[in-house]
């Protein structure tokens, strides 16, 4: 079995609008796959398609090496958008109902999961009295029932405070590293996501516009110098001649992005000034996931 999840040309059309369009995604065992996209990009619909909550207009979903959801559904845990919990039941009762649903005989799993998500001390308090963060934790515990091998988490840190976000991050990391759980996760907190994901997929307008690994992101996010000058053509000539490099890009009519010598902005400034170039600004830039995401979205927008 080489993949845990694979979709082929997965498409969902609502009326005349494609919420998800021809998405091919492949997630290997042990991956933490971060799905990124603006609101309405199709991330949640893609997850709902994978989980059989909505039916695809076209395409198919294969799980655990070609199996269907009905065969392997018990190996999948999920949180989609809003926590799916009964508000009139306590955390323990919600988990008990889930335990019975999945046919798990070991009753101690309920206490174990409550402890794992930090809800062991909530007692008989009904879930409708929970804060959003507590509901999210309970939802996470419900998704972990049955020791799933694949977790599909849509905004799992929604409503959590910074310490809660950190705990969830650690829990996800632990699940992946210790238990070998494969995770498909979406989040708007890209900095958080970049601390977790091993692979990324960027969605825009229902399409998967780019996929890359964490290593590829590091490569693409190399630091550079952004130099704003009065004469771009002359400046590039000087850089090519004196620095002996073509490792730069012209960003606009007066900005050059140089991918070398990023530790020596003073040296570049001096060189250009000595050759009669007016350097309006020069600063070091490093693309993080957020900026890279925006760049990809902008490029996609320009192409369409």
């Amino acid at each position: 079995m080489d993949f845990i999840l694979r979709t082929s040309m997965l498409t969902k059309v609502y009326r005349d609008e494609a919420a998800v369009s021809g998405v091919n995604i492949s997630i290997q065992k042990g991956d933490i796959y971060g799905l990124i996209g603006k609101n309405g990009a199709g991330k949640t619909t893609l997850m709902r398609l994978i989980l059989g909550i909505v039916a695809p207009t076209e395409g198919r979903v294969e799980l655990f090496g070609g199996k269907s959801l009905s065969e392997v559904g018990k190996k999948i845990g999920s949180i989609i958008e809003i926590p799916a919990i009964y508000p009139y039941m306590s955390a323990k009762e919600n988990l008990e109902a889930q335990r019975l649903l999945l046919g798990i005989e070991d009753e101690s799993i309920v206490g174990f999961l409550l402890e794992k998500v930090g809800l062991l001390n909530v007692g008989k308090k009904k879930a409708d009295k929970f804060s959003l963060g507590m509901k999210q934790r309970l939802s996470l515990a419900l998704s972990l029932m049955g020791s799933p091998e694949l977790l599909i988490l849509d905004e799992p840190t929604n409503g959590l405070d910074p310490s809660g976000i950190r705990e969830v991050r650690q829990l996800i990391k632990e699940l992946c590293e210790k238990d070998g759980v494969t995770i498909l996760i979406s989040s708007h907190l890209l900095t958080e996501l970049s601390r977790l994901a091993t692979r990324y997929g960027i969605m825009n307008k229902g399409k998967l516009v780019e996929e890359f690994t964490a290593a590829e992101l590091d490569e693409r996010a190399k630091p550079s110098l952004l130099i704003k000058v009065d004469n771009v053509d002359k400046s590039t000539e000087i850089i090519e001649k004196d620095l002996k490099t073509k490792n730069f890009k012209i960003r606009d009519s007066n900005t050059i992005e140089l991918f070398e010598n990023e530790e020596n902005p003073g040296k570049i400034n001096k060189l250009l000034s000595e050759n009669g170039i007016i350097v309006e600004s020069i600063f070091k830039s490093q693309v993080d996931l957020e900026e890279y995401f925006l760049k990809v979205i902008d490029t996609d927008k320009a192409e369409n």
Partner: protein
Amino acid sequence: MLNLLRSDFYKTSRMKVFYVFLFSTFLFASSFSFFIIRNALKNSYLDDKVSVSQLLLNNLGCTMLFSTIFTALFMGNDFKFNIVGSVISRGISRSNYYFSKLIVSVLLYISLFILDKLCVLAVGSGYKISFGDFNKFFFLWIFCEITCGLSSVCFANMLVSFFGSRSLIFIMLLNFGSLVVIPIINGLLHAVLKINVELENFWMGSANMFHPEYKQSLKESTSARDIVKNIIWCVVFTAIGILSFQKRDIKNK
């Protein structure tokens, strides 16, 4: 399926409304029966004997009302709190999910029914009781009435969950069918084609429970006809309910 049922029974046991209905059934059944029997004997229209089948049929509407509300809450909660999606995403088939809800609803009705009738019989035990008017289909007839009624309730709930209040128009039409539409069609058939037909005999059963015939004694032929009719309607409602559920996308509320 067994796990689904276990989970659904557990959820039922956690619903306050379940206990409220149990208590209400006990209260209504005991008090109503006491006053009805006493009044009936006082006014001598029961010939000093209370028929067991009449007692059993008595209050059937009340338990049906409780079961209908319970089923609506039981199924509606799953949609309201986005539970359906989380159950389906665990690989549980939609038809099993639907059947589980129907089975739990029917069993709840049966529990309320048994409780109700135990109360009624306990109250009636102080009087002379006639056991002579049972027919061999009596309990099967009641079971089919219940199952058919609740299959229509499950079906209606599924429609409401997917289509919201718009489907209430359809449900109201369904309910009023036997009361308004069928008599009109009967009348038209008689007036135009000179055909004497009682279409209500082919309509799902609960409305017929209030037919005078049932208040006296239930004929075997009538019971048999109603059993067949109710089985057919039950299959129709369940099949349409499951098919519509299979094809619909589950939306978050």
